[in-house]
């Protein structure tokens, strides 16, 4: 399995990965938007088309129907007129016929211009019928009442009734034609809708497939990233634990080494030099004071020996403060405080309450080194005038604090090796180190150690 591309030039996640994600998710989104818009457009198109068809159908079929019914009415009125014996209706009849004629003519004029052949034929046959009826009317109007009564029945049977059945026929043809028109339009619309629908369906299918592929790929990649992160985290935790263990061992080893070198210096070098001093002292005492040359010599030897003793002693003290063994923790801290006071411009005060001298040696050395480091830092960097060390012991813990009134620092930003070392030492014993400092407000270092219950 190839390593996931976590650390290429673009940082984490890599620029390449980001670009890929952007393109693929963006593409998918665009595809979905297109499909959605297409579906909307399809629906709207369908609606308009349907409306158009309906309008067109109405525009063509309505006048035709009106026309055929008007002609039918005309025929009806003719029939009525023939059968009538009322002299009054004669004048009215000619008036009514001219009104009907005008109505039919206006309907014909209103008829839409775009006509299909079949439609044109229908229209022509209606026109033809109307012309025939007008032809029938003219002689009838000029007939006398007597003539009308005689000829009415014959005229009715031979002219008017056949004409009437022809009008019915034409009317049925129009209805049939209308139905055909409507069905044809429906079919046409259905066909165009089906093709659009197929197009949309395929678009949707593509979007869905792309989405599926993309999410599967993403899931796979995320899972792999998760595994990788988990693995690295464990690795990190392990190496951190190892480092802590190592540094703890280093601190231990350092203290042990220091102690043994200090012991060695004290026992071997210190003993020889001490004996040398005693012997030189005796020699100096036995030289007669008159013999100035030899006395000067002996005094010089003595001075060199004293300096050497002092040097060796200081080195030994630095390595392992013998006060810790001779006098205990508090006395050693007091001594340390006085030493710093002597060497620097800072006066150190040590306060302690209820501190048992039976606390384990690793605690004593840890607290001692902690205070030593804190005081040295304060004396060296803070220009403090006063420092206060307090050590308190309760039933289950020891509290140590070192305060100085120096210029302070920002503990978030300044993290020297010294502070790291202190933290390491304190953590080893399960303690907590807290440094509270602000520029211009002094520094308080606090450490809390849980005591082993014996």
């Amino acid at each position, binding site marked *: 399995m190839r390593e996931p591309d976590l650390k290429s030039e673009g940082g984490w996640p890599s620029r390449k990965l980001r670009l890929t994600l952007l393109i693929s998710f963006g593409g998918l989104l665009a595809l979905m938007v297109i499909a959605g818009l297409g579906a909307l457009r399809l629906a709207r198109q369908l609606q308009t088309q349907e409306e158009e068809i309906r309008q067109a159908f109405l525009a063509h079929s309505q006048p035709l129907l009106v026309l055929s019914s008007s002609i039918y009415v005309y025929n009806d009125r003719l029939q009525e007129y023939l059968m009538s014996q009322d002299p009054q209706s004669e004048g009215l009849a000619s008036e009514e016929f001219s009104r009907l004629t005008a109505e039919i003519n206006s309907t014909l004029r209103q008829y839409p211009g775009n006509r299909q052949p079949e439609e044109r034929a229908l229209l022509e046959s209606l026109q033809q019928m109307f012309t025939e009826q007008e032809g029938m009317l003219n002689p009838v109007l000029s007939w006398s009442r007597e003539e009308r009564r005689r000829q009415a029945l014959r005229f009715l049977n031979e002219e008017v009734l056949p004409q009437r059945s022809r009008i019915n026929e034409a009317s049925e043809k129009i209805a049939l034609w209308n139905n055909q028109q409507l069905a044809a339009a429906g079919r046409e619309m259905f066909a165009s809708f089906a093709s659009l629908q197929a197009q949309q369906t395929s678009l949707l299918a593509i979007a869905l497939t792309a989405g599926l592929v993309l999410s599967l790929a993403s899931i796979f990649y995320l899972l792999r990233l998760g595994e990788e992160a988990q693995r690295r985290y464990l690795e990190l935790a392990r190496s951190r634990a190892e480092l802590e263990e190592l540094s703890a061992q280093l601190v231990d080893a350092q203290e042990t080494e220091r102690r043994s070198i200090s012991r060695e210096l004290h026992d071997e070098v210190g003993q020889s030099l*001490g*004996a040398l001093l*005693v012997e030189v002292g*005796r020699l100096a005492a036995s030289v007669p004071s008159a013999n100035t040359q030899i006395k000067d010599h002996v005094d010089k030897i003595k001075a060199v020996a004293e300096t050497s003793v002092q040097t060796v002693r200081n080195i030994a003290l630095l390595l392992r403060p013998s006060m810790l063994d*001779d006098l205990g923790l508090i006395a050693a801290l007091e001594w340390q405080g006085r030493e710093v006071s002597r060497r620097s411009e800072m*006066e150190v005060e040590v306060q302690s309450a209820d501190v048992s001298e039976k606390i384990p040696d690793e605690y004593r050395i840890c607290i001692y080194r902690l205070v030593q480091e804190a005081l040295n830092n304060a004396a060296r960097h803070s220009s403090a005038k006063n420092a206060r060390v307090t050590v308190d012991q309760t039933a289950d813990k020891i509290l140590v604090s070192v305060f100085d009134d120096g210029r302070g620092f920002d503990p978030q930003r300044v993290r020297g090796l010294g502070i790291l070392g202190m933290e390491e030492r304190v953590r080893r014993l399960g303690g907590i180190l807290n440094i509270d400092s602000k520029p211009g407000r002094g520094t308080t270092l606090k450490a809390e150690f849980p005591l082993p219950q014996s």
Partner: protein
Amino acid sequence: MNSIRVLLADDHKLIRAGLRLVVDQQPDLSVVGEADDGRQAVELAKSLKPNVVVMDIGMPNLNGIEAARQIGEMDPGAAVVMLSMHSDEGYVLRALSAGARAYLLKDSATTDLVQAIRAVVEGKSFFSPAVSKVLLQDYIRKLQRSGAEDSYDLLSPREREVLQLVAEGKSNKEVASLLHLSVYTVETHRAKIMQKLNLKGVPELILYAVRKGIIS
């Protein structure tokens, strides 16, 4: 003339040998025993009944301070001369608290040892000049830095007399007869001195006196 019996306790054989030569040169002093560590020093003090124990502070098993305390509890007649590498007051105060009457730096042990032994036999104190110097310097530095006034100035002339005599190792009764005062008055003076100088116990009082150069 009665010889002064001296017990030497130091974990360094060479140094013990050197000290022995210094002591043995004096006709009225004699080394009755040598101990390698504190425990042995306590045992030998018990069996040999020396007048003076010359003891190193830094010894294995039982350190000099603990050994001095045990010897003092067991035989108050044995005076202890403490030998140390350190001139720090932490050591001096603890040595005094443990019952030591003299405190010598090892560097100057050959020069001052005989004088120190004779002083403690007479019930007096003795401190290496270098120790007094360091104590005084610490004291002056503290005063200067804190700006406080020297508490010694608060003492009356009579109180200063009492302070010196007590620091030299005199009992209340001895002080009373020397100054022609009642024991009760001496006790009152002592209490006032302790209060004014903010001292706790005789060892701190002796340390104070050494620091001020009232005794050496």
